């Protein structure tokens, strides 16, 4: 059974249809890249997977391990293993990053019937994960993402991912805002999480990221539909040709 199956998914936001019949199947252990022009619906797809309120699926299904998740709240989906690394991570003043991480981790464990981690156990895991991503633990005492640079925010997303050990990772433009060294650190972090029973959907505009996180499959999303699917060479092709060819096709579709 595939990890994720998206079937004929139509999504409306604020009365406007953004996704117009998306089909996507991601097998266990696979990494799929999604590319596509600005405004084509990539973030919308990521939000629908994570269960953001206001993103209404009017048609179609989203199955995780064969189970339809569309009726679930976001926290339930997270406990089932879905993780979204946000394109624009939010700042939460007054909630210390450490508190946030621990609350999230323990909430998920609780929901899965696992015991909560003790403070020393938790600290050990966080310190190790932060060290690998070259995040200063002093930063984790601050409010979530407050005063973090763009790149630090992205790193913090991957730190959360490393701690929560999700089964389906959705990365929305995690490479944007990262300098060359940070891109390497973050990609290594992501690659460490690659495993036969963890799948990834990597949204990006640039081949650069896919040099580090090499995808099994590349899709092009244009105007709310997947218009082309290929191997990793498709990304290189797009780099050369751009999206003009697909925009015509999408516009012509009924």
């Amino acid at each position, binding site marked *: 059974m595939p990890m994720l199956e998206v079937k004929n998914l139509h999504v409306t936001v604020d009365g406007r249809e953004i996704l117009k019949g998306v089909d996507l199947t991601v097998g266990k252990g696979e990494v799929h890249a999604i590319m596509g022009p600005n405004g084509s619906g990539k973030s919308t797809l990521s939000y629908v997977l994570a269960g953001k309120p206001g993103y209404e699926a009017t048609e179609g299904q989203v199955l995780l391990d064969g189970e339809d998740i569309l009726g679930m709240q976001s926290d339930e989906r997270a406990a089932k293993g879905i993780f979204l690394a946000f394109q624009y991570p939010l700042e939460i003043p007054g909630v210390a990053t450490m508190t946030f991480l621990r609350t999230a981790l323990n909430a998920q464990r609780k929901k899965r019937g696992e015991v909560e981690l003790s403070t020393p156990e938790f600290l050990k895991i966080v310190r190790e994960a932060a060290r690998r991503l070259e995040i200063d633990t002093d930063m984790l005492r601050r409010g979530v993402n407050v005063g973090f640079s763009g790149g630090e925010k992205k790193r913090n997303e991957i730190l*959360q991912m490393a701690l929560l050990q999700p089964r389906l990772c959705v990365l929305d433009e995690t490479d944007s805002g990262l300098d060359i060294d940070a891109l390497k650190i973050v990609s290594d972090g992501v690659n460490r999480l690659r495993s036969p029973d963890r799948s990834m959907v990597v949204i990006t505009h640039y081949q650069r990221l896919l040099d580090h996180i090499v995808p099994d499959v590349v899709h092009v999303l244009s105007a709310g539909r997947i218009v082309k699917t290929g191997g990793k060479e498709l990304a290189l092709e797009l780099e050369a040709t751009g999206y003009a060819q697909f925009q015509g096709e999408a516009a012509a579709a009924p």
Partner: protein
Amino acid sequence: MNAEVRTIKTNAEQALAAAFAVAKAKLPGDRKVAALREAAFGRFDALGLPHRRVEEWKYTDLRAIIREARPIAGPPDAASMARAKTAGSLIGDMDARRIVFVNGTFVPELSDLVGLSPGLSVRSMAQALAAGDPLVEANLGKVVPAEREGVVALNTALMCDGAIIHVAKGATVERPIHLVFAATGQTPASVFTRSLVVIEQGARVMLVESHDAAAGHHVNTALEMVVGDNAHVDHIKITAGLSDLIHVSSLMASIGANARLNDFAFNLGGGVVRNQTFIRLDGEGTHAGLRGASLLKDKQHVDSTLVIDHKAGLCQSREVFAAVLDGESRGVFQGKIVVHQHAQKTDARMMTRALLLSDEAEADHKPELEIFADDVQCGHGATSGALNKDLKFYLMARGIPEKEAEALLVQAFVGEAIEGIEHAGLRDALMGQVVVWLQGRED
């Protein structure tokens, strides 16, 4: 026949007049105090209970709220005193000198008066009134005259007991003083307490007031505070109680030069609460921080009204108020910053924010600036709104259940105001109360 037109008195006003007529002979004080009470009652009688057509009381129509005056509380019985032992517990395990008042009367047996540090004196207002105390005579009703405030006049007329705290010039009181006002009578009563705090030049003290009252009580409490030059005072008032309680509190403080007042009001429920604060900055270079946090549910109503008078220049004032409103509760904030003509280089900033957790809750903000000086920096802001949905989604997307996500955001919201408390132990204790309040919301 008397042709004079008179305003119709409400039942409560008539009952208060009758109660004063009976009580005045027994209330503490010499002849001078009796005259003070008589004059004050005359003022109250002329003004009546404040109502919504009085601008300052627009949102808290006390005349309509107090339908029936409660009888004036007598000295506490043994059962009331026993119940008062657990009063004031919201401060957690902070070490403080406990001074206890039960049903408006000072109870030395429950108070800790041993080993007062040099320069500190703590006395009972009732005893001082009876004995004719010069400190009381010099200050009572004079610190920041509130001529138009009927509730203050009523307090002066009926004041029963309270604390007199004096900190001598240059003295530092290390151990915080905890004034515990417990109204624990079996039958609902009216309680009038009046306190006077005089902090001389360069002295330092932390004062916590806890007000706990049993169902149905009407509390009218007032505190006058004189802060000398270079003095440093922390004052925290905690009000908690049940939904059918009426609590009216007046703080009147004058502050000298290069001093520091750090005031915080924490309101956890309590029926109808009116906290009015009148601060006058008399000397240059002073910093006044006035903050507050309220957590309300059901039909609870808290009205925080403050006037800060910048009479001298080069002072800084900061007002930060946060209200978390659930159920059908209502949070009112009225803040006025007055900058007098000679108070140049005043730096005053006021911020009030309300977080609405239900559609039925209501927040009213009325910030005002009255500026007569030309070289000042003043500003105010007010916001009210529901919890940020995007932040909630971010937390939930990490697996945090909805109620827990909301709780984290609420803690962050009130945390901003609570951060203003300098004592770390008390800060943590009050944050702990916020968590308890939030858990109560989930059940």
